[in-house]
Structures are given as C-alpha cells and as structure tokens.
C-alpha cells in the first residue's frame, strides 16, 4: 500500500475492535484472544513492508492473526482435552457483553469445527469478508474456502439447532 506510515498505524488502530472480535471466534478466553491481537499488532507493524500495494489492510491483519492463532493453538493442543481448554469454567464471557450464554454457546459450537472450517466461517459469516478476501487470508483457492464453509455451516446448523441449552 502506498499509504504513509502514519496511515497504516491509524488503520491498525481502527481495526482493533474487529481484530478482537475475530480473535474471540478463535480463542474462547478473552485474555487469550487479546494476546492474539497483541501479536498481530506487533507482527503487523514490524512487517509493514510486506503489505502489498493496494491490498486490504484488514485482510492482511486477519491473516497475521490467523497465523498467530495456528502457531499458538498447535503448541497448546497437548494441554487440551477434546475442545475443553483448562479453566474452561472461568471463561464465562465478559460481564460487559450482552448475552454471555449465547456467546458461549456459539463459541462452543465453533470450537467443535476443524480449524480450517472455523476460520472460513469466522471470516465470511462473522467478519463479512468476501470469498476472495477470505481465501486470501487463508491462503487457499476460493473453491477450497467455499467447501470448508459449506461443511462448517452444516455442522453448525446441527449443533446450534439443539438451542442455547443444547450444550452438555
């Protein structure tokens, strides 16, 4: 992007609320999610030179956050027992959010999807990225993105049709 350094920094600042939301679709614990945002900010600014001219700062930052999550997620897998992170009972959302139960329910359903399906669902359905942008973030062809999206949706329809009280 031909923008001057200050413009990039402003865009990063403006993206913070959305980066935090994206991170929360990946990490259930709000503090873990903010740690991902922190890494994305540091890496994004430290590698500002890699941002290609004319490309979307939003998609670029999502891509960095996604990579950070994949790194973290894989390294902490061994501490998890099938989708239940340690201290899961402490993560009952932030008290400032509207409906922590609904958020928790949706987060839990998302957490059951394979990583790549979860990313596709999060980027397209929650963040509202176009197929082209989401495929670029995930570094896959559009066809791969849409098939992951389709499978993710199908699973979520089943999981969430059990209703907000459906988690056991």
């Amino acid at each position, binding site marked *: 992007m031909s923008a001057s350094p200050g413009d990039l920094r402003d865009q990063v600042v403006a993206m913070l*609320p959305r980066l935090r939301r994206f991170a929360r679709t990946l990490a259930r614990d709000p503090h873990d999610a903010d740690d991902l945002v922190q890494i994305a900010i540091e890496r994004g600014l430290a590698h500002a030179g890699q941002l290609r001219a004319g490309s979307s700062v939003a998609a670029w930052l999502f891509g960095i956050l996604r990579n950070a999550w994949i790194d973290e997620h894989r390294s902490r897998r061994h501490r998890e027992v099938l989708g239940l992170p340690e201290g899961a009972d402490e993560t009952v959302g932030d008290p400032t959010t509207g409906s922590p139960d609904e958020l928790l329910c949706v987060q839990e359903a998302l957490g059951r999807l394979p990583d790549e399906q979860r990313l596709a669902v999060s980027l397209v359905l929650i963040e509202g990225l176009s197929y082209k942008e989401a495929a670029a973030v995930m570094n896959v062809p559009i066809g791969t993105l849409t098939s992951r999206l389709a499978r993710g949706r*199908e699973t979520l329809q089943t999981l969430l049709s059990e209703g907000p009280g459906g988690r056991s």
Partner: protein
Amino acid sequence: MTFSDEVLMAYVDGELDAATRAALEAAMAQDAALAQRIAAERALRARLRAAFEPVLDEPVPAHLMHLARTAPEQRDTSTVVPLRRGEVRRHPWREGLALAASLVAGVLLGHWVLRGGGLGPVVTRDGQMVARGPLAEALTGQLAARQPAGAAVRIGISFRSSSGQYCRTFSVRAPELSGLACRAGGQWQVQVLTRAEAAAAAPGHYREAASSMPPAVVAAVSAEIAGSPLDARAEAAARRRGWER
C-alpha cells in the same frame, strides 16, 4: 430448476452473479422448501454475527491501544525484528493522561470554534459542526494514500458508517486538532473534534505516533464503522462518487 447448497450459501453471502440471483429469487417465490433452506442459512449467519457483535462495543484494552500507537513499525522487509511477547511494555496511565488532556481540550475547543465566527475550519450550523474551507476541501479531495508533503490537513482513515455514510478522520495544524467527519446532506458533519495528542503519549523516537488518533476519535470511529476502513482503491472510488452513497 434446482439449486445446490453451495449456490444457496453464495446467495446468502452476497456472492452470486446477478443472473443466478434473479433465477434463485424467482424460484424462491414459488418454492416454499427452497425459501425455507435459505431462511435457515440466513438465520445461522445472523445468529453468529449477533453473538459476537457485543465484542465490538467493548472498550479496547489500553495496552493494545498503546501498542498499536507505539510499537516499532518496520517498512524495510530485509531487517528482522525480534518478536518476543514478554517485551511489551504496558503503560495504561498514558491512555488516562491523554484522555484527560483531550477532555480539557474539549472545553477550550468550544471557545475556539465559536470565536472563529466562520474563520476556523469548523463552523456550527443548526447546532451541527460542519467542516469548511481548507478542511472541507481536503475531506472531499485529498486521498490518504497521496497526501501532499506539509499539507495543512492530513487525512487518516476513511470508512463507511453503519448508516451508510462515508466518514473520514483528519488532523489539522495550528491549532493541533483531530477529528472525525461524515458526509451528509452535501457537507462534512464533524462528529468529534479534539486536541491532537502531542508527544505526551510517545517517546520521541516513535515519530509516527503523533499522527495516530486520540482516544476520543478512536472511540467515535469504533462506534460508527461498518466493516473495514477503505483501502486505497475504495477510497479513490468513493471520491469519484463525491462521497455519496
């Protein structure tokens, strides 16, 4: 005509071409089962979005805001910057200080805007602050990606608001002010105007930090923004349309 699940999903995601979309919509009117499948996809999308929507309204933690403003920015791809998570310094008090400064500035600003009597970059019309003169010209004509060196007005980011208006952040010099203006009724309505943060928030060697937005402007952007900031191409396209929806 039958439609695959992928076509239905692409419809809900706004990714269908006009011809297929028209065919699908015609079929939906006739076929209750098809309409039902689409409604289910729409409901899923709406539910996921609604569940995470409150996160956008949470205040951004001060340490993240501070980091975004001050973390070293490296444009040269050949230099490797060490990334260690423990290195991040947290100075939440600085946010507080900056906020206090902007509140004090707010009181002074009132005087300044009114005293200008039409000479300053902002006038009040029907109780609404409106950009004028060089500020209005810059908001209409200046692209963030190509700002003249030493320009009196600097444009920050541009975006669409949730009500569909184009909004842009700006900063002006003498006095140092930052703000957010949105295009409505053929003029730039100033949503927030505050004293630009001087070097107080950042040590001298972070030279970009002064161009970052004060907390009051960030808060206004977070409250208004729908989607992402416009990239250089979208910004140029919006300018061509005269910032009209």
